[in-house]
């Protein structure tokens, strides 16, 4: 699953630790999500969407979905 987390974070000038703290997860969890090594749970994805005031599908894109 691709995501725009790194870009959205950079736009706000937040470090991974800053975003992690705002989400209640570790810096490593943010890094794992950004690099696509870990897919967040639905509650965490909703939390991200609320934080960035976006829809989940505007942050995460399913690579298998038809373009």
């Amino acid at each position: 699953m691709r995501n725009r987390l790194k870009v959205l974070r950079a736009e706000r000038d937040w470090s991974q630790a800053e975003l992690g703290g705002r989400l209640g997860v570790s810096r490593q969890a943010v890094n794992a999500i950004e690099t696509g090594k870990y897919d967040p749970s639905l509650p965490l994805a909703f939390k991200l969407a609320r934080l960035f005031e976006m829809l989940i599908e505007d942050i995460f894109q399913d690579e298998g979905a038809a373009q």
Partner: protein
Amino acid sequence: MTDGENFGTAKERLRRRRYWTLMGLALAAALVIGLAGRVLGTPYGPIAPAAAIGLAAALLLLTVVGNWVYFRSIDELEVAANLIGGFWGFYAFILGWPLWHILWRGGLVPKPEMLPLYAGAGAVAVAGFLWKRFQ
């Protein structure tokens, strides 16, 4: 805590400090139980029944309470890492014994022993946890 610019960083630092404090306390508790077992007798020698019950109860209580506190303080990546580590460790133990037993029956290895199997399963569980946590 205010919603300042570094609000998240401070919160994450606090979370990390809480996590490592918990790890330190768990290690200290394990050392105390280990030392108590050593003081009460030789590692494989007999100890008084009351002391055995006390040590077993302390270990059980600390494990249950410690895990309850631990799982409330970690994030979902760490939960996933624990799941992977637990899964690896479980299979290392469940499969390790019959594999060793079969090889022993074939005269290829020494007779199966519990302690290396226990330690090996623990090491595999830790490896699984670390792989998922820091991949």
